[in-house]
């Protein structure tokens, strides 16, 4: 039986660091087209921030912030955003994922619409990847009974 030794230093440092890690994850998602980064990488960083919360504090701390239901909803939401943006392009008359057509509903011109379209799907990918990473960790860490982390 492993007893948990909650160290003050680890808890304090992690509590200070985790918001910055999350902001950095969002930055990596948003700057995927002009620096190394993108949806998958940013999603993993966001997921890692939640796992750090699990490891440094108790599992229940993270459960207060991300319930099982929320994780499931995020998994589906991300893919739905991705496929939904492609669908919208289809409805506006182009091929699937033809972001150039988005200029009819967004107030930008056709070239900038492509950039925004790619950004939209990267956000979707990031949400899904974050939810899946946290879900894998939760299933392995606590036999789905979620007592201790």
């Amino acid at each position, binding site marked *: 039986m492993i007893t948990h030794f909650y160290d003050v230093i680890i808890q304090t440092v992690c509590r200070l660091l985790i918001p910055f890690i999350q902001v950095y994850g969002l930055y990596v998602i948003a700057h995927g087209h*002009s*620096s*190394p980064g*993108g949806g*998958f990488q940013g999603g993993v960083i966001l997921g890692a921030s939640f796992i750090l919360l699990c490891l440094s504090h108790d599992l229940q701390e993270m459960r207060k912030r991300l319930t099982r239901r929320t994780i499931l909803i995020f998994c589906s939401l991300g893919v739905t955003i991705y496929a939904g943006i492609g669908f919208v392009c289809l409805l506006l008359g182009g091929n699937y994922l033809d972001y150039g057509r988005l200029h009819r509903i967004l107030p930008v011109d056709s070239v900038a619409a492509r950039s925004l379209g790619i950004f939209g799907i990267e956000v979707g990918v990031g949400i899904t990847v974050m939810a*899946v990473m946290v879900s*894998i960790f939760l*299933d*392995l860490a606590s*036999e789905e009974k979620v007592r201790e982390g």
Partner: protein
Amino acid sequence: MELIIGKYNYWIYISLMMIGFYAMIAKKNLVKKLIGMNIFQTSIILFFISTGSKIGGTIPIVEQGAQVIEAGQYINPLPHVLMLTAIVVMVSTFGVALALLWMIYRKYHTLEEDEILRLRR
């Protein structure tokens, strides 16, 4: 000699691949097989990325306000993009495999292949 020294990167990838393959086949512990699979897939990813590099090439990002773009100066970004997808596939296969190992452990209380085969009879 030129074959070994000149193409040393291919020798590294092949040896990594064979280490992973050997682990998948010969090891009895299921977690070691899984790690072997991971090494195998990682070596393939490294191999692909190395095919896109050029001597003296720079990263394929266009600076703001650049007028003339010469494609020959940038390294090839397509293998990087393909391998991003392959890394995602690798991670999700690893996740499913870990969940499977957890189910196997809950049922048989061991992760050695010969004991599991004996218990399954």
